[in-house]
């Protein structure tokens, strides 16, 4: 579904991602783990077209998307839950959700079903549908960001550190929801520092350190891996 080959990404003269190759298969949940500054967000921003200083190939459903603009990539069926949520603060919850579908022709026809689906996963969003997004708590805003991304009927859902700034119980809760979403014919790319929680969602994972992939394996093997246990799980 997503195939990245020999990707190099730079900010100005500073190269952040080095010769990276990875893939995500149909209906697969893939994790990217790594410490702060490893290049997780940079990689995601490069995939989604928010960074243009990049070389290499990024193929989505066999189609080259490197060089396209963000809005074009989104329309092809990629959705992003950004680290900083990027909601519309003076619109209501429902307006935010609807905007998630309004500019994607395919999703526009499915707006009612998608809204129901999102309200089912996050009942709190239905309760608060008339509240302004900017007045909600951090955890609720995160749910809204996930909900908005789901409104676009994505084939690939990318989440950039969804656990950041959430209290542990909310993180557990959110990752349970991700497991529900996984059942719905959606591929997931999850960038996380919280490896312990992340491993419960993903099928396969990459470890990204200093802009290079250090390790790739399925979730079960990653859990047993010595480097992962020492550096990320504190065992």
């Amino acid at each position, binding site marked *: 579904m997503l195939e990245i080959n020999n990707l190099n990404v730079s900010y100005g003269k500073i190269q952040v991602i080095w010769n990276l190759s990875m893939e995500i298969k149909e209906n697969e949940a893939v994790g990217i783990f790594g410490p702060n500054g490893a290049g997780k967000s940079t990689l995601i921003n490069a995939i*989604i077209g*928010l960074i243009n200083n990049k070389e290499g190939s990024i193929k989505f459903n066999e189609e080259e998307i490197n060089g396209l*603009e*963000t*809005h074009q990539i*989104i*329309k092809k069926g990629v*959705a*992003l839950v*950004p680290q900083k949520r*990027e*909601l*519309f*603060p*003076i*619109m209501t919850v429902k*307006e935010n959700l609807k*905007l*998630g579908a*309004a*500019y*994607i022709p395919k999703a526009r026809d499915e707006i009612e079903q998608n809204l129901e689906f999102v309200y089912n996963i996050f009942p709190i969003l239905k309760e608060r549908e008339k509240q302004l997004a900017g007045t909600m708590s951090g955890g609720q805003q995160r749910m809204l960001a996930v909900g*908005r*991304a789901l409104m*676009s009927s994505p084939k690939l859902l990318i989440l950039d550190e969804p656990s950041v700034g959430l209290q542990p119980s909310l993180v557990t809760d959110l990752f349970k929801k991700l497991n529900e979403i996984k059942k719905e014919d959606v591929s997931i790319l999850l960038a996380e520092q919280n490896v312990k929680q992340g491993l419960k969602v993903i099928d396969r994972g990459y470890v990204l350190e200093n802009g290079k992939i250090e390790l790739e394996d399925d979730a079960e093997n990653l859990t047993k891996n010595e480097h992962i246990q020492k550096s990320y799980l504190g065992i």
Partner: protein
Amino acid sequence: MSFSLNKSYKILLLLVIFIVIIGFWNPNALLDGLQRGSLYSLIALPLALVLGILGVLNLAHGEFLTVGLYFIFMLNTRFNLDPLVAIIPTVIFLLILGAIIYWLTIKRVVKEGHLSQLLLTFGISLILIETINIFWTSMARNVYTSYSYASMEIGSFRFGTYELLYILIAVLVLVGLQLFLKKTRLGQATFAVGQNPKGAKIVGINVNYVYLFVFSVAVAILGIVAGTMLPRTAIFPEVGSPFTLKSFALAAMAGMGNLNGILFAGVTLGIGEAVINSIPNYGGWSDIVFFGVLIIVIISRSYRGAR
């Protein structure tokens, strides 16, 4: 930068009380003030739109108005077109001009700091003024229409009817803009981009296209203003320049991005000015009062904000 459509009922109530008092004390000043205020708001609206959504400070704003005025003047003298009818071709002309200027220049400073924007748009304003100077010289020009000095009498109170058009058009443009922002998909995209450009990109909005659209429409709205103004205004190459500063003042007083607030601010300042003008020998004070009121509003707001 945030962009709000909130209705400020308290301000509206104060304004109504203010208007009633002035109306009993000096009906002429009230009417004059309402007309000026509507005109100021009309001119400030597109500036506030560009400021609120693109975050671009456009110093050439007044000059786009001047271009519109001269374009209508040209249509009137060459083709004998009535200024109000000439609004239609002028709006189309300004829409295209705005789009071209956006693509060639403004596009490059949207993400830059305000200094680059000020320098660029100052340059554009000079180019526009000098171009007009070349074609029409600095001589003041007028357009005469049969209706521009029509007047009406109620009891012993006599007033010009033409300028009531300013009020009507200001309300129409404001309502039209609000409906567009609330009800259309492109309007919602505009509203979304104004709140969070990055968020807009990731819901699939073509942000550059929205910027182009908003800038062109903002310039085009000045075509409507130009057509209504021309029958009552003598034009010269710098005729639009003072409006840039007044528009900034209005946008600042209303609060960045508050469209309704612009109408309130415009009417308040317009009436303030008109009252001063109606006092014999004190006409020169009107600009001082205009900016004095502005400073008081901004200071009081910053105190409220600090609390």
